[in-house]
């Protein structure tokens, strides 16, 4: 069964509405995209939707109680809350530098959790 679906692109602020046709294995991007990144996004969204994950993790002995973090790659949508739960159980010791890996290979999906901010010792 090939069905048509409209996908709103989240790559940039424009938010193009991209029409795709897919059978779950193959995707045809029909119309509505303005750039190459939009085509890539629409194909991925139809087959294997993923999102960048940003949240924060507890800091011990820091000038701030938290440090903001992101996933090193986009996370499969159905794994987002599993990753969040794992991050909530962990903490990191100050000082933390931006770019520092705070959790390696989180829940075994080959994605790291990386600090996005510098937090000095208190």
């Amino acid at each position, binding site marked *: 069964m090939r069905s048509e679906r409209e996908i709103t*692109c*989240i790559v940039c*602020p*424009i*938010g193009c509405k991209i029409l795709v046709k897919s059978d779950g294995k193959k995707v045809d991007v029909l119309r509505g995209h303005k750039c190459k990144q939009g085509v890539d996004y629409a194909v991925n969204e139809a087959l294997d939707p993923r999102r960048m994950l940003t949240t*924060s993790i507890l800091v011990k002995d820091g000038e*701030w109680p938290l440090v903001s973090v*992101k996933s090193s790659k986009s996370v499969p949508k159905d794994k987002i809350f599993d990753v969040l739960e794992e991050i909530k159980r962990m903490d990191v010791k100050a000082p933390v530098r931006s770019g520092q890996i705070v959790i390696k290979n989180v829940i075994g999906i080959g994605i790291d959790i990386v600090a*996005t901010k510098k937090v000095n010792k208190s």
Partner: protein
Amino acid sequence: MISREVDVVVIGGGPAGLAAAVSAKENGAKSVLVLDRNSWLGGILPQCIHDGFGVEELGVSLTGPEYAEKYIDMADKNGVEIMSDTMVLQFDKNREIIAVNKKGIHRIRAKTIVLAMGCREKTRWNAMIPGDRPSGIFTAGVAQAFINLYNVMPGKNVVILGSGDVGLIMARRLKFEGANVLGVVEILPFASGLPRNVVQCLDDYDTPLFLNHTVTYIRGRERLESVTIAQVDNNMAPIPASEKEIKCDTLLLSLGLIPENELSKDAAVEIDSATGGPVADQDFETSIPGVFSCGNCLQVYDTVDMLSSYAKVAGKNAAEFKSGRKQKKKSVRILAGKRIRYVVPQVVNESGSVSFTFRGEKPCGASTLYVKSDGQVFFKKKLRFVNPANMIQVKIDISPRLLKSSKTLEVSISEK
């Protein structure tokens, strides 16, 4: 009183102030000083931990703290001087600034000033929501600071009024932290935030968006107990029969942003009532010579990328400003015509290519943009769509002849 002289003083160390300061330094200002009331730089960015910053400007998607760090590093490398924990109390038309911090009161004589004070969130009192006055009502940005900077959860069962970007981002953030987000209530027939945020912050987590709805009553003795929401008619008046009560302990308000210009108003800088920011010319100079304006205190931008690119222009012009130069002669007023909410700059007083930014009044499909000089169309451009959440940017060549012959230029949109 501590007295000193500086080439360019930037008021506000958020993204606009940092971009303007770096650009001023790169363009020849000998001394550039940034004054900020916080203990940190970057303004609101450190609490905007989501990504999507820098896509247009740098081609990569950064989080707020990462984007801020780029500019903080650039400011540092370029020798921009920073005074944080410093509150500016006033500036005047002679470009003298009075500021205060723990060291005392500072009197700073500036060759030029760049205003970069940012904006504030609208509150319950801007929306005039009737009812009780319990705790549990926060603006979305304050809730964002609580969660992302201070590790404090504002509540458990949350209703969000207004679908601005901060509200949408907070809907997802609250879900991530285990709260129930009962819905986002928007009085307009469309979301006011960016399309990508509706998708990745609401749709992804099945959070309902109640369009054409508003909050009509707030109830609670100590803590918020419920809000009443109702559908609105074409005149945005609530329909009583549609009212329903939602039990909740927290109401977040994402009602839009207001440029912060208390200092500008005290100095008698002319303010545009449509933008809430100073009236600016093509150089971002305000009605006071040598005082420039940029960032969200000039107009509320869609993205930090766009904001930084214009702030850099303001910073460059501030660096290159020559006091005692020839007065700018002829000035032409730019008017917002049909289907346009506002236009920046509001004044043009020099011929050349001018970058205009403006916002449509309501969403429409393929349209044509017209610019008229005293009623005569001299510029036309096709627009694929108009969405008030997406600022429109157009470069228009203003010839010396046009500048000389026009009293006003009017920008308008007509739908096909």
